[in-house]
């Protein structure tokens, strides 16, 4: 049920993001979702791609500091209160969200949101118990 996310350390200077996307593009890797967390000095680019292992390798070879992190991709109803419902489940289970971001495209009628929580397995269990759909890695990479 876990999806592998690629994180890249970027300094806040022009052209760095372009460089990452160029490396991925040159290697035929498609970006499914992305988010940037930044401070005044640096940023962390988080990516869901169609081939995370390959993305990890090619970015590393290109000289970037890269890490792979497990996250979950949750189907959220594309209607008012959709996300609130998912968050309520996690809150009830006392699970702290480190960060979340949305996919660029939808899976059928629902929106897709990436969640990073420390206790992934507990989150998966809590969400599934409420009938919320979590996509597998294979499903996400093949989107």
């Amino acid at each position: 049920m876990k999806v592998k996310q690629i994180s890249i350390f970027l300094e806040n200077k022009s052209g760095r993001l372009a460089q990452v996307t160029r490396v991925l593009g040159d290697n035929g890797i498609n970006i499914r979702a992305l988010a940037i967390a930044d401070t005044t000095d640096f940023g962390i680019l988080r990516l869901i791609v169609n081939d995370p292992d390959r993305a990890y390798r090619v970015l590393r070879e290109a000289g970037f500091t890269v890490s792979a992190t497990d996250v979950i991709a949750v189907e959220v109803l594309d209607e008012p209160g959709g996300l609130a419902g998912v968050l309520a489940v996690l809150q009830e289970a006392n699970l702290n969200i480190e960060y979340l971001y949305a996919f660029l495209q939808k899976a059928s009628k629902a929106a897709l949101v990436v969640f990073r929580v420390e206790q992934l397995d507990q989150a998966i269990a809590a969400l599934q118990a409420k009938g919320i759909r979590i996509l597998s890695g294979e499903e996400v990479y093949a989107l």
Partner: protein
Amino acid sequence: MYWDREYETMSREQLRILQLERLKLTIERVYRNVPFYRQRFIEAGIKPSSIRTLEDLRRLPFTTKQDLRDNYPFGLFAVPMSDVVRVHASSGTTGKPTVVGYTQNDINTWAELIARSLTCAGATRFDVVQNAYGYGLFTGGLGLHFGVERLGATVVPVSGGNTRRQLMLMQDFGTTILTCTPSYALYMAEEGQKMGLDFKKLPLKAGIFGAEPWSERMRQQLEEKLDLMALDIYGLSEIMGPGVAMECAAKQGMHIWEDHFIPEIIDPATGEVLPPGEQGELVITTITKEAFPLIRYRTRDITRIDPEPCSCGRTHVRIKRITGRSDDMLIIRGVNVFPSQVESVLLEFGETEPHYLLVVDRKENLDSLEIWVEVAEHMFSDTVRKLEDLEYRLRERIESVLGISARVKLVEPNTIPRSEGKAKRVVDRRQI
């Protein structure tokens, strides 16, 4: 005006006789009391009795900062600890500082030499000396302090920092002599100007500026802005602290007090003593110190000796402004900093081959230090909070090792230039 006319104006011939006598005693003492020196002398085939002339000094091996480190903390002391009344410390090349000790006689000598140095700047017991060198392990503050008291002037032990308070005291106490680093003096001048302070109306007459390299350009600025006579003072904790050498009103270099120290200039690459007047590394032998005598200590400071007589009448030779270093030491806000100290911290953080760069700059006369650290994979975390925490912990640790504040900036791999396989560790953008 002299503090100690007899010694300050002694004939060269007499001075040489005195130096030889004191050198012989020092060599005998270290041979007897410091195993490190005895071992070194034996290896070099030298006995105390081999020292018959001042020229024989050249036969003795050098002492380096590494030797001080190897004998940390008290291994090179030549007296029992019961005779040591004070210790000071300065930056070592890694986490451990360089420790020096003083007997009561050493403290007295130091005070005498500072009193001499203050007199060079025209100070008398009627002066108010605002001492803005840092107090503590650093030799600047306490060194100057005892000398001002010896002179009989009034010392204001304000220490460094808190510029507003400095300027207030300067006005309220009628400071006549300011002692601090030249860059801090310039900073005070500019802060004072911003507050609308007219230094021409203050009784300031001289500034004794040291602990970092400066220039004639800075002298001009300091004299104009603060309306005083700006003089250079030289010292290093290993040898004593400030007051090893001091400029007189002729402003033609710093008289090194040769009745207590023997200076030599060597080629830093070969160790050969250079002919008089040539530029090279300053090597100093102490000939009166009791607790921590140093034989041919390599200061790593680059300068030259001017042996010409001085118009002030003092017979002691002058060393010229320090123009650089023969090692990679930096002086930031008067504090000695070695890139290897930063490296030792990164090693503590699990870096096996740390890539880092010290970026030093001077903005509004204040030195800033930024340390760039390449983020290796094992340091990298997916969350901002953890990376910021890493920055914070690195900064805390680096500050505690260096003794000055620094900013840590995490950078991407391979952003720090590597030249010929060896990384460049320092970018110094300061214009002095």
